[in-house]
């Protein structure tokens, strides 16, 4: 009814300050919800992308027992057939084979356990961007013979630097203890200090020469055209080849999948906090508006306005405010997300610790259209739910309110 709309509209402007505050709350709630979810998503996504692109890749293949035990004789039995398969699958954008064994690193001052990773520089660079983690010296593409790159943490623990020598000791494929002397060509820093302490990189051909007569590989890292393809590709590989175990990044890094889950909970938690605050704000404002108008509503009921219409009149006010607030809020939020997804949000001042742990301090928020819709729907539903109570109180008003003396 047009008249109800008119009353509601004018009632909103009866207290411009109050309505504006409510409107601002809806806008701010929506904006904060969207931006927060965007930042959390962005943070998660960046972390995941970083881990995938620098190290884990979308999928990996190992000997079924290798990851748990790390022995050099647990290599991939049918390596060449598998790489042939990968070569011919168009979902695979690149792959790289790694020769890996657990062993010891020895410096003049101490000895510690590490995983020694022999990489093929050419295919590694095509597949991951781990080489970008070099903070000192060179990557393994240097001319230095028997080059090794080690993590910053390890270098510090052993008090060694670029140009120093270290000795790597490990068991070869024949179960014999072997060692070699390596020259530190470069120092890297990855996302995790733990990783930096426990991994060293050498060239796979030099590694293979020390391990035995055969070319052995313990890991194949695979990048795919899309992260979603990891599941199916892994399934097919496991079906096609025996004696190997292919896994997706989610399976390989429980830490990452937990992060994804945690991110989901954070999103829910934060949206809930914002929404509860919003709901109370609206409830309070609408109740105030109602108590002020008890007599007026009593009068309307007395002269013959139905309770349904009174309910609609009160609800219409909230609906108008909600629609206005939600529209403005979603537009502002979209603009902000669009802007920040290009420019990034610099969280440096809040995130010194996070940067130490290898988290980016520039966040590029990400939000899917489904998430926009969900947040919008939640704000709209919460706002309307919070208005139902005052509206129900409104229709319970006694018409005698109008007839009261004084």
């Amino acid at each position: 009814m047009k008249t109800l709309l008119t009353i509601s509209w004018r009632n909103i402007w009866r207290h411009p300050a109050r309505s504006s505050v409510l409107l601002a709350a809806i806008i701010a709630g929506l904006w904060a919800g969207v931006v927060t979810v965007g930042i959390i998503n962005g943070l998660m996504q960046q972390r995941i992308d970083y881990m995938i692109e620098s190290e884990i890749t979308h999928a990996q293949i190992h000997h079924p027992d290798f990851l748990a035990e790390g022995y050099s004789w647990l290599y991939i039995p049918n390596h060449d057939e598998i790489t042939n398969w990968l070569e011919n699958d168009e979902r695979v954008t690149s792959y790289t084979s790694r020769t890996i064994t657990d062993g010891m690193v020895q410096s003049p001052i101490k000895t510690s356990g590490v995983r020694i990773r022999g990489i093929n520089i050419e295919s590694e660079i095509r597949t991951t961007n781990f080489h970008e983690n070099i903070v000192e010296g060179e990557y393994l593409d240097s001319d230095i013979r028997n080059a090794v790159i080690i993590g910053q943490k390890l270098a510090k623990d052993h008090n060694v630097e670029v140009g120093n020598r270290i000795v790597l000791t490990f068991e070869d494929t024949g179960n014999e203890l072997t060692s070699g002397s390596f020259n530190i060509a470069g120092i890297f820093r990855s996302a995790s200090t733990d990783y930096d302490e426990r991994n060293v990189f050498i060239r796979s051909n030099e590694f293979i020469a020390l391990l035995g007569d055969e070319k052995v590989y313990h890991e194949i890292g695979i990048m795919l055209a899309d992260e979603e393809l990891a599941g199916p590709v892994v399934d097919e590989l496991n079906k096609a080849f025996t004696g190997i175990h292919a896994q997706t990044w989610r399976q390989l890094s429980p830490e990452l999948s937990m992060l994804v889950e945690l991110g989901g909970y954070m999103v829910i938690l934060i949206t809930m906090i914002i929404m509860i605050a919003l709901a109370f704000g609206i409830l309070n404002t609408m109740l105030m508006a109602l108590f002020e108008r008890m007599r007026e509503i009593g009068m309307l009921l007395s002269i013959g306005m139905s309770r349904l219409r009174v309910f609609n009149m009160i609800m219409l006010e909230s609906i108008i405010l909600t629609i206005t607030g939600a529209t403005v809020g979603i537009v502002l939020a979209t603009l902000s997300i669009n802007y920040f997804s290009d420019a990034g949000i610099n969280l440096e001042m809040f995130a010194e610790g996070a940067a130490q742990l290898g988290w980016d301090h520039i966040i590029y928020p990400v939000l899917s259209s489904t998430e926009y819709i969900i947040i919008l729907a939640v704000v709209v539903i919460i706002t309307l739910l919070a208005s139902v109570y005052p509206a129900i109180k409104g229709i319970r008003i006694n018409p005698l309110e109008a007839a009261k003396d004084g």
Partner: protein
Amino acid sequence: MAIVRTEKLSKVYNPDTVPVHALRDVSIEINEGEFTAVRGPSGSGKTTLLNMIGGLDKPTSGNVFINGQEISKMKDSKRIDFRLQNIGFVFQHYNLIPVFTARENVSFIMLLQKRDKKEIRQRADELLDQVGLGERKDARPVQLSGGQQQRVAVARALASEPKFILADEPTANLDTESAMNLLDIMEKMNREQNVTFVFSTHDQRVIDRAYRVITMVDGAIHKDEIKSPLEGRGVS
């Protein structure tokens, strides 16, 4: 047939705690065209009686018939609609929708009755002219004096073409001049259009203008006088 008829109407407030017998066995009839004042000391039950007749509150016992229909037993929603179609109200204050102009306030009740839009506008204008507010049709209540607001309320009450108009102390907040002016308008409507009015008042000058005066004391009718003959005013 009487427009309003009450039978042994009683109202007890707070029956369980401190019972207040606001009305005791009140039986009255109000006929079409009457211009009736209800008087009595404060607390004598005037407002209570008017609220019962207007279907705003339910009696503890007894019946209220409006045009032969028992309204005190009606369901709430039906009673609201009955009020809309049959009874006009003028309250002491808080009569008008503050965000509406005088014209919109008068039109509103007709919109609730779902009347024709064009007819509504025309009738609202006519009524505002009748109550002497032809120039202030677009003013909002805050821009009007107390007396003017009450006149808008009278116009609004009449707009719905009710069987009768109830007014509980319509002049209580007005200065003498505005009060007399409001009475002039009500009386003129009564005289020229045979509109039935029932109003309560403390004011002797207002009582003097009434044709019938019901005096209440302690919740009961103490006196019911026809002060001037009603012949020639369409009432037998």
